[in-house]
Every structure is written in C-alpha cells, then in structure tokens.
C-alpha cells in the first residue's frame, strides 16, 4: 500500500484542507507521499514535508503548472500514479476538476466525495444529496479517490519528510489560463471556518446581508448562503452551502432565514452545533437544529449581536 496525495495550494502556501486529506490517506493503510505540482512552489513542498505521516514530498515545477490547469496537472499525476495503490485529492473544485481526468487517462474509475475509508478498497460516500450513504468496493489496481475534508480530522505537524524533485511533464497545449477573480475577504474561508453564519431568501436583499456581516465579524465567522439567496442575487455564488455548493461542518452553524431544503441540509448537517432562526415554525431547518428560535430575523439578529457583546 502506498498513497499519493495531490496537494492543493496557491504556489505560496499549502491549503489547510490538505491536512484532512492526509488523515484520509493514512487510513488506507500504507505510506503516504505528497505531490506538489506548481511553479515557484518550493515553500509549499517544505510545508508539506513538516506534516505528520508524510513519507516523501514530490515537487514538480513548470510554468504550465502555475494555475493548476487540469489538462497539465492530470498528466503529471498519471505519470507518477503507477507506483501507488491510492491517488487521493480533496473533493474541492480543484480536486474534482483534476482527479477524474487523471483516473480516466489510466483507465480507472474514481470514487468521489469519500466520507469514510472502510478498508483499502472499500469506501463510504453520500449519494442523493446525502439522503443515502453508499458503501462502494472498487477492484481497480489504483484507487482514485476524492475525499471530503470535513469528514476527516486534520493531521498535525511533526514530520520531517525529504523533498524530491521530479521531472515535469510537457505542456499538453490544450488550454491556457486567462484570469481569476477571488473575492478579497478578511474572514475565514467558508470550507474550513469554525463558525459559519448563513443567510437565506428571507434576508430580502443584498443590503440586508450586511446585518449578517456584523454578526459574522463578532463571531469571527465565514459567511454562507442558501441557493435561494444566491439565485436571488443577495449573496455571491461562492457563498452557496449545499449539495452543489460548499460542504461545511463547522463547530457552529447559524442558519438565518433559511427554510432548509434537502439540498441545503446536505451541505451543513454534519456541523457540530446548528442554530436556526426563522419566522416559520414549520420550516424543515428546525428538524436538524440543536437550538431553534422562531423569530423575525430583523429583530433577533441585532439583539443577538448586542447580547454577544
């Protein structure tokens, strides 16, 4: 058994979710190597080398790896995968984009969004927006897995793995990077935040989301939204929590003016503590909430901010 973890990074630093992916990789029962493919990303490899349980870091640098284009990164993964029994990436927009491409290139399937490693060849994953859990056994010689970071506790530091430079594959020449618009924010990232404050359509306008921002600032929380709120234009796309948006599992999730469609619940029902504030006493969100408050959010939220001090 030997697992290769495809690291997600921005060439400057390793994303925290890699620690969770490493925990999943360790459960597969063998040594774990990490692939850092990028450009000017030696610092990232050094960070990966310090994480617990890493046997070796493979560093592969090339200009055509800089922006994580799937066409090039998948080729690099496929070039190295032959030496491994498991190839694992986070179930993030990066991992979901790259890994199936690498798997198909080698003629193997993939198990997506793994939430539990039952054994080296058997995995649990949610289907139907989390309304059922499938246990999947795969006979592939190399298991390609994307794992849901929130389902695994992150590994700590304490490792001192060697960093080995590997030759980069040539540019596939199929795609080029044009640009990226990243919302600048001082808040924690939604996927990894300890507290998430989420708003629904009941907020009524983008301006009213400012109320949530004040609460989020007080709690050092990330901001989220239901699909209804995003579709109505009250919140940006990347705030969406749910089956087709972000999957979060913070210590505290506060759902404000969110009715609780199954697609939304799929994205947050693994949160440790769920608070729901909604005017409608019959809203389905109350069925999963630890603490439910039936109230007008425009009165309750200012009071909540005030009482939190």
């Amino acid at each position, binding site marked *: 058994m030997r697992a290769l973890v495809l690291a997600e990074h921005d060439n400057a630093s390793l994303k925290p979710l890699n620690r969770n992916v490493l925990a999943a990789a360790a459960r597969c029962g063998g040594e774990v190597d990490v692939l850092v493919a990028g450009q000017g990303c030696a610092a990232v490899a050094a960070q990966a080398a310090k994480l617990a349980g890493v046997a070796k870091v493979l560093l592969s640098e090339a200009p055509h790896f800089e922006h994580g284009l799937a066409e090039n990164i998948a080729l690099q993964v496929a070039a190295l995968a032959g030496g491994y029994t498991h190839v694992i990436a986070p179930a993030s927009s990066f991992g979901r984009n790259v*890994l*199936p491409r690498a798997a*198909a290139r080698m003629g193997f399937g993939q198990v997506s969004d793994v939430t539990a490693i039952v054994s080296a060849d058997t995995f649990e994953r949610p*289907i139907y927006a989390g309304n*059922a*859990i499938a246990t999947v056994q795969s006979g592939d010689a190399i298991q390609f897995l994307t794992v849901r970071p929130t389902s695994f506790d992150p590994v700590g530091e304490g490792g001192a793995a060697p960093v080995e430079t590997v030759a980069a594959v040539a540019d596939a020449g199929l795609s080029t990077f044009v640009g990226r618009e990243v919302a600048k924010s001082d808040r924690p990232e939604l996927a990894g935040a300890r507290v998430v404050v989420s708003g629904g359509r009941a907020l009524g306008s983008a301006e009213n989301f400012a109320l949530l921002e004040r609460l989020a600032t007080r709690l050092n929380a990330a901001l989220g939204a239901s699909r209804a709120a995003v579709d109505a234009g009250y919140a940006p796309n990347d705030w969406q929590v749910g*089956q087709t948006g972000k999957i979060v599992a913070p210590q505290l999730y506060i759902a404000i003016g969110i009715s609780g469609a199954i697609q939304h619940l799929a994205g947050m029902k693994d949160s440790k503590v769920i608070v729901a504030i909604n005017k409608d006493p019959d809203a389905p969100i*109350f069925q999963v909430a630890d603490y439910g408050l039936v109230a007008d959010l425009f009165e309750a939220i200012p009071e909540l901010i005030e*009482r939190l001090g």
Partner: protein
Amino acid sequence: MKVLVCVKRVVDYNVKVRVKSDQSGVDIANVKMSMNPFDEIAVEQAMRLREASQATEVVAVSCGPTQCQETLRTALAMGADRAILVECEADVGPLAVARILARLVEREQPGLVILGKQAIDDDSNQTGQMLASLCDMPQGTFASKLVLEGGRAVVTREVDGGLETVSLRMPAVVTADLRLNEPRYVTLPNIMKAKKKPLETVTPAALGAETASAQRVLKVSEPPTRKAGIRVPDVATLVAKLRDEAKVVS
C-alpha cells in the same frame, strides 16, 4: 459546428428518496423521473449557441434504459435536432458513460460537448472530466459563462473562493454549473414537434465501448439522522445556551 449535449434521466429534484429496507439501493419505483437539472442547463446552452448561429446542429445523447427516450424527447422539445439513445443498464458508472460518449465523439466529430457538472442521483461529478481525458480534449468544468471566439472556448468557472477563466482549444468539453443560464420551459407545440424528430438507438457493443466496471455498491444505508434539538423562547436564552451548554461562543 456540431454540439453534442449529454443528458441523464434521474429521480426528480423535488423527490426525497428512501433507502430500501434490504439496503440494496434507493426505492425509485413509482417515483417521478426528470432530466438531471444540470443537463437541462447544458441543453439550454447548446440551444443558445445554435440560436446565435455559432452551432449548426445540436445532438442530444443519453446512456441508460429505454425510458431515457422520454428524457431525450425533452431535449428535442427544448430544440435539439436529433437524439441518440445508447441503451444500457440504468446504473452504468461515470467511466463507462465516458467511454461510450468518447466513441460517439469519434463518430459525430462535434466541435463542443456540453454536459451537466454532476448528476443529482450519484453526485459523482466525473463524466465530463473523464470524457475530455479519453478524447484528449481540454475541459471547462463548472462553467458559469461560455464564450466562443477565434476558434477557442473561453470558459468562466465557478471555483472555491471565486471565478476562474480559461481559454480552451476546440473541440472541447464544457460542464455546466447552476448559473450558466436559466433553461427554457418546453411548450406544447414543441413537445409535438419533438415527437417527429429522429431518435436513434444504439448499443455500447455496436459502438465498440467497454462498459464493465470494477466498482460494486455493497450496500446503501440511511445517513445518520440528526435529532431535532430544542426551541428557545428568546435571544437571551439562545445566547445563554450557546455559552453555557454548547460552549461554542465566548
């Protein structure tokens, strides 16, 4: 330019599925089936390209049992010119579907293939990426905007933390995210017209596509249920509970 658009028949978005008591799967007998919502967006995008004279023909494809003909008729009613049903079992996996589609791409030579980013039944989010890989085409996944210019597909993608734009050599594979467009409603006259449009049925074997899978579903179980907690009468009680009982705020 020809556009190939791929559609899957799935349990309707509004149905809450139930796990079978013998854990062999979910109960989909007598449940409403529809076109996968992301695939509807893919069909809509193909139609917009044709209406803008950027595409000359839109071909809809589905892999699955005979009933997928209904799904293909919906695509034809939305405006697709013709349809192909690759008849196979309902639970054929993403890699097998990608292999079938790759054979059809070889036969049809489309300039663009559009699929939904994921199906809402197995939530795999793999088929488009695998198809692109097998055909050695570039991929624009999770697309929220698609512009064809100078022989390239410029795709704006929804990624964690924002948006990313890539430029792809064509032919290319694009997978549709929620905000790419809002699909049209099919009208009765178009449903009638769709009945007369050509729908071809083929088998994976006739296409030379391998559909065996190394994956087996051992069981399907209920997710752990979360018990509803308590109702608090007011904000003061809520804050007290969060501080003293749950200890999640200071």
